[in-house]
């Protein structure tokens, strides 16, 4: 007759080997996963703290980016319209500053696909006094559109008559840039009107 204690021992051994032991392996795997998950959560928490630490900085950055974007002609506008608009702004600046705009030529737009922009060249010939030309230059650069003066030639014609030949470039987006969705993080504010490329300078 088999001893009851022996039977109990055999039962316990079978229970341990076939039921508990596989679960122990599962438990060890879970423990390992828990450690990984804890470290992952800790990393995410640190990241969240970092991202949320200076929201005003992000807001300022977004304001600057939005302002910089506003200095470009939008992607929806075709090249001819953009060049026409640029020419119109130049004319307005010329009239306002009292210079004589003699010639204005459109150049061939250059696509810079890598940067998602098109360069819109425009060449001008202007006559005027030194102060008027300086005012014209100031008005062009503060017209609300980013204008890059690529070439410039100033020639003295008479005592108060200077000839200015200038090659300008305006910029237009090829495709609309990504909009910032989270408005709470990036409240749109009207920036001070000044031509400033804040990023990267």
């Amino acid at each position: 007759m088999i001893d009851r204690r022996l039977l109990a021992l055999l039962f316990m051994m079978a229970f341990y080997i076939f039921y508990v032991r596989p679960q122990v392996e599962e438990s060890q795997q879970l423990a390992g996963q828990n450690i990984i998950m804890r470290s992952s959560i800790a990393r995410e928490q640190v990241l969240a703290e970092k991202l949320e630490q200076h929201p005003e900085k992000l807001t300022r950055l977004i304001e600057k980016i939005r302002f910089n974007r506003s200095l470009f002609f939008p992607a929806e506008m075709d090249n001819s319209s953009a060049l026409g608009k640029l020419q119109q702004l130049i004319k307005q600046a010329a009239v306002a500053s009292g210079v004589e705009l003699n010639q204005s030529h459109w150049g061939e737009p250059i696509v810079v696909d890598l940067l998602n922009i098109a360069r819109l060249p425009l060449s001008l010939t202007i006559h005027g006094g030194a102060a008027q030309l300086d005012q014209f230059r100031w008005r062009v650069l503060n017209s609300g559109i980013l204008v890059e003066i690529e070439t410039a030639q100033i020639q003295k014609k008479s005592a108060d008559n200077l000839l200015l030949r200038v090659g300008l470039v305006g910029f237009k987006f090829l495709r609309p840039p990504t909009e910032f969705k989270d408005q709470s993080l990036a409240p749109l504010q009207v920036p001070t009107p000044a031509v400033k490329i804040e990023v990267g300078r």
Partner: protein
Amino acid sequence: MNFRFPQRIALWLSRYLQVVPIEDTYLSRVQIAKKVTLSPAVVRLNYFDRSPFTSGGILYVRQKEDLNLWFLRSDNSSAWVNIPEAYLLYRTYAADLEEGIIVFPKQNCTAYLIIKSGKLIAQVVVSRERWSAEYESELFQLLTREHSLNQPTILRHSSTTLLHPDWRVIQACLHWDFNLSQLLKGGFKLFQGPLIVYLVILSAYQLFTLQRHEGHHEQLQIEQVEIKSHNRPLKQHYKELQSEVNFWKEFSRTEIHRPNLQQLLGVVADATAADSGTILMFRYAGNNVTARIQIQSGAAGLVRRLLDSGYFQQVKVISSRQSRQDKGLQEIDIALQLKTTGPAPSEEESS
């Protein structure tokens, strides 16, 4: 060397040792081969038929090829080691005796041990009722003849003090009846209970640990999902911003390289005015500036002043000629190359 245990240890050992009185034993001697391995079971099987008693046990002591067997009147001893009194007396008093008869008077009897060639060869017990001096004298003669003793030494001990066996005696009388399977079975039985308890506790602990880990795992999963869903828009936002910042950096690096026209003109004008000169023409494209300047003296001073301004990397005089309008003035064509690194004019200054 005859090692003896200290008194205390000997007393403690005596709980597990029992000296079987000489009157309850019967000594028999046999010769055995050296290679034969003995055990209590083997001895009982082979030699119990020599016993004068119908029951009882056997004690034996082996001395090389001699085997001394003590048959016991009864076998009700519970001690671990049973030592025949005759052997204990022999080892205590006659271990060095070559040939002789040793007499040990006891309370109810007198014991005689016969020693020959240094070995215990026989024992005789005479009860108190039968003992007399004449009987003893006749017994000596009988034993001398019987065992072919030659003028044996008669040693008479009157001491009946309790004897403590030394280690050699115990060793000689200690016979292991070692059975591995029995030992394992016994050990297994002994550990069954604790093993069951251990397995129950271990299983409970490990199942509890698993439950705990599962609970933690679920909680961590929830936490991870929460923090990830919280961070996802932030990360996306950050990624978009980073991409935008990279765009403006790249745009600024590749597209925005205009010099500060006003400042540039100012630098050239200052260098010209120092010599009461006039700028007739000023042209720039990229990093290159060309200018026609009308000055009174030679070009050397102008070049030095332009280089000292720190704006130009290179100043080159292309041509120099006398002015047509004013013969006292010089018209100089110069080419200037702007420094790529240096006091770069800022946008704010230009605006």
